[in-house]
Each structure stands twice: as structure tokens, then as C-alpha cells.
């Protein structure tokens, strides 16, 4: 009996358990999933929680419910991975593996910036990448009467790179509905040279910021937060004042990766971008936000990766060459406020372009263009996430590799 261990029961880990269990003989392979947390959060929902669009209950469920029968779920903390010895040390036991899948994700590290996680953290400085942060921000926004709001991005890479911009757009709508938009000044602050992280988007969508009267500060590499004077300060000495700072802190891989000596500077695991095998250990595979591959850290990416990785794990077990198949495919809805959204579909090589999706020429969704239908697509995605994505079911008409059909290239 051989052991396959999956570390992490987030989006990627849960999908892998669901993909692999029916494909591996129970008499030959045991599958174990390890995750220290009981709750599985629908992370895309954290964007909507601060604006009272989603409730707490809509973004969380018991994680175990999504793990298939025949897979052992161990709710314990992972202390260390010993790749040379093929074992994983948990808080009070050791597990041996023949094959390891690392799906430990990424999380915010506000302590990376001086003064960010200090006396004003969750008072007038908030993140919305955690359940706690998004909830605290919701409570703050309910009573906030206005002032200078900064929506700030610390450094790349971050999970769901368009989220901070979506946050700014939704904030504009939220304050309009509340009738206090004239009392709120919204500014988007980024270390990049444009609001969008992809240049084609910056060009095509630059009008959105103007239309919504959102200020833009670019090339801002933050050094510290001044808690006394409510300022963010960059390495060049530039200062921007705020009354309310909504920040996306540095994103890093899990500390267990650092403790195990498996990561880069940001605790992401060096991974082959096309096969998803670890670059240093052939019986370790990596998926989702935990990798260092130059794709978006997003659920859609994990979903496409999961299909390739499932095939590659079966090939690996049969001693066959792996398929260098994964192309960096990502598919993201971008909320633009006023019940509209954009859709982008791209990969390692192809930047987002205009077109129709998923049926070439027909759509019904339009790429790189605002529409009400895209917004409904984004909201419908929550159902797809819980009922199809986590269970590893294919999304109709959407293939693992990006299709160039229907795209204006």
C-alpha cells in the first residue's frame, strides 16, 4: 500500500483529492489530506463581505464536507516536511509518503512592512484577504462617515491580482448608494507603473478610474506606515496621507515551506511551470498559490492546473514521462461596480484581449468589456465553486489550456 499525501485542504488540495480518489485503486494507494483548519473559506467572497453584499455564512463551510469518501482527513498542524526522508512531521505524529502534493497556498504577511501591523491594525488599517480583516472592515465601513480612503497594494505577486482594483470600484458604488460619495476621496496606490498589472488592461480599462473619480498613485514601493500621522511612506520619501487604509500586504507561502527549506524568498516552492513537479524533488508536486510559477494566484488557475497535475501524477506512478502541458491559463471576472463586471482569459504568453467567451463569436460573455452578464457570472461562480470546482468537475466549454478562438489577437 502506497501513500499519497496532500498538504492543504484549500481550493487546490481539495480539488486534487476529488480528482485522484476515483483514479487511484484504493487497494494500492491511500490518500491523506492534512490541514489544520476546520473551515473552508470561499476566498473570492472576501471582496464582497466588506460591502455587505455577502454575509459571513455565504463565504464559509466545513472543509471536511468537500473531501471525498476514501480519503483520510487529518486536521492537524504541519510542522515540517523532510523531502530527503519522504516524511511529514505533524504536531503529534509523523506520516510517510511515496508521493507528496504541496497545496499550502499563500497568505498575507503584514509584518513585512514596518508599522503596518501595529497599533492601528484593524482600527483604520485593514486587509480584506482574511475573513477577520474583511469582517472588521465591513464593520468599519458601516459606520464610516467619509474621508481619504487609500486602496493599496504592497508588492507583487499577490493572490487574485485584480482584487484591490475591484475593491476600489465596489467602494465607489458602495459610497454612492450610501449617499456619501462626495465625502469620500478614493485613491489607488500601487508599486506598479499602472493600475492594472497587465499592460493591455491598463490601456483598455484606464477609463474606469476616471469615470469613477478614483485617484491613482503609481510606482509607490512602500517602506513604512506612520501610525501617528496616518501616512504611508515609500522608499523615495513620498508620503500619502489617509483616514482609512485598505491594504493588500505582502503575500507569502506558508511558514512550513520556510521551515522545511523548500521555498524561495517569499516561501513559494520552485516548480516546473508546465508539469507542476517540484524542481528539486521528483516525488513532490506543487499546485495553486504555493508554487512560484508566473501565473496568477487564483482559483481558476488552480482548477486548470489540477487537470494537468492529475494526468501527470498518473503518468509519474506508471513511470512515464510527464506532460509539459500547463500554459498558465487564468480566467477572472473583474467587478467594476454598478452591477457590472469584466471577464479576462489569458495565459503565460497571451495577454488579456477582447473577444467572446466561452463560445467563440457567440459568448454569451464578453472579454475585456464591462457587462451586466459578466457580473451575474461572477455571482454565479460561488455556486459553481462549492458544487463543481471543489469537486473537480469540469466546467462545461472551458478547457484547461487557453483557447485562442473567439479572441481578437
Amino acid at each position: 500500500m502506497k501513500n499519497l499525501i496532500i498538504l492543504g485542504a484549500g481550493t487546490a488540495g481539495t480539488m486534487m483529492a476529488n480528482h485522484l480518489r476515483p483514479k487511484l485503486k484504493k487497494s494500492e494507494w491511500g490518500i491523506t489530506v492534512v490541514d489544520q483548519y476546520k473551515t473552508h473559506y470561499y476566498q473570492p467572497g472576501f471582496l464582497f463581505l466588506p460591502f455587505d453584499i455577502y454575509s459571513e455564512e455565504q463565504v464559509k463551510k466545513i472543509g471536511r464536507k468537500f473531501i471525498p469518501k476514501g480519503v483520510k482527513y487529518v486536521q492537524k498542524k504541519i510542522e515540517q516536511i523532510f523531502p530527503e526522508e519522504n516524511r511529514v512531521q505533524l504536531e503529534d505524529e509523523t506520516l510517510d509518503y511515496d508521493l507528496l502534493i504541496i497545496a499550502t497556498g499563500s497568505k498575507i504577511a503584514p509584518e513585512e512592512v514596518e508599522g503596518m501591523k501595529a497599533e492601528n491594525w484593524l482600527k483604520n488599517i485593514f486587509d480584506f484577504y482574511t475573513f477577520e480583516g474583511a469582517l472588521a472592515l465591513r464593520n468599519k465601513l458601516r459606520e464610516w462617515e467619509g474621508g481619504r480612503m487609500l486602496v493599496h497594494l504592497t508588492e507583487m505577486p499577490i493572490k487574485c491580482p485584480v482584487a484591490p482594483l475591484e475593491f476600489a470600484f465596489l467602494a465607489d458604488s458602495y459610497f454612492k448608494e450610501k449617499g456619501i460619495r462626495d465625502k469620500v476621496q478614493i485613491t489607488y496606490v500601487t508599486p506598479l507603473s499602472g493600475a492594472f498589472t497587465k499592460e493591455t488592461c491598463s490601456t483598455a480599462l484606464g477609463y474606469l478610474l476616471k469615470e469613477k473619480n478614483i485617484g491613482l498613485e503609481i510606482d509607490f514601493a512602500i517602506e513604512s506606515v506612520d501610525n501617528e500621522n496616518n501616512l504611508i511612506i515609500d522608499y523615495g520619501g513620498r508620503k500619502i496621507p489617509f483616514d482609512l487604509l485598505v491594504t493588500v500586504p505582502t503575500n507569502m507561502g506558508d511558514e512550513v515551506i520556510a521551515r522545511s527549506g523548500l521555498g524561495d524568498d517569499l516561501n513559494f516552492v520552485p516548480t516546473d511551470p508546465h508539469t507542476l513537479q517540484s524542481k528539486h524533488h521528483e516525488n513532490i508536486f506543487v499546485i495553486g498559490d504555493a508554487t512560484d510559477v508566473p501565473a496568477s494566484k487564483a482559483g481558476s488557475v488552480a482548477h486548470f492546473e489540477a487537470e494537468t497535475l492529475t494526468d501527470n501524477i498518473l503518468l509519474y506512478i506508471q513511470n512515464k514521462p510527464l506532460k509539459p502541458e500547463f500554459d498558465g491559463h487564468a480566467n477572472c471576472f473583474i467587478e467594476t461596480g454598478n452591477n457590472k463586471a469584466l471577464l479576462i482569459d489569458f495565459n503565460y504568453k497571451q495577454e488579456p484581449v477582447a473577444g467572446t467567451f466561452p463560445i467563440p463569436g457567440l459568448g454569451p460573455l464578453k472579454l475585456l468589456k464591462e457587462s451586466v452578464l459578466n457580473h451575474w457570472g461572477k455571482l454565479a461562480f460561488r455556486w459553481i465553486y462549492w458544487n463543481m470546482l471543489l469537486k473537480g468537475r469540469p466546467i462545461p466549454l472551458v478547457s484547461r489550456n487557453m483557447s485562442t478562438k473567439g479572441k481578437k489577437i
Partner: protein
Amino acid sequence: METLIAGSNVKVNQEGYLLDFSQWNRTIGEQIAQAEGIVMTPRHWEVIEWLQEQVKADKALSIRGIKKSGVLDIKEFYALFPGGPLKISTKIAGVPKPKSCI
């Protein structure tokens, strides 16, 4: 597109970044720096050479990478290339503007 910098015809992209590093030389770098309002000193060139080595070694450039480089700290990087040090210095160095994935 092709453009004339310091007497040489070089291929650049829309933002003025060289597309072919083999066409680069110091005089071209100097000219680009001048257009960015920077007067090059020996220290500037040390940093430019380090950046070129990183790109040659296929290492991604980032502000965080500068912090850990041991070559210079971020404050100095900003002092040498004010505004957006990474995008300005890479332009002078004749290497691609660092990309950040979405």
C-alpha cells in the same frame, strides 16, 4: 520599431526599452539616462552592471530582490534612480522592463 540613440540604430518597444541587448552600449545607456534626467556616476554603472548580470542569469528583478541583493539597499536605489527606480534603471541597462504577472 527602430530609433536612433547616440548615433546607433536600435530596436525599442513603445516605451523605449531596448529589444535586443546586443545593441546596447554605455553611450546608449548614458543617453537614455539623460532623457530620464539622470547623470550617471560610477556607482550608477555598478548597479546597471549588476542588473544586467541578474537578467543574464534569468533572475527576476524586483524591489524585494534589491533588498536582499547585498549590492545596494532600496533607499540608495531610489536615490540613484528617483521615481520608479526599477523601471528607469532597466531602461538604461537595455534589459526588459520587469513584468509582474496578473
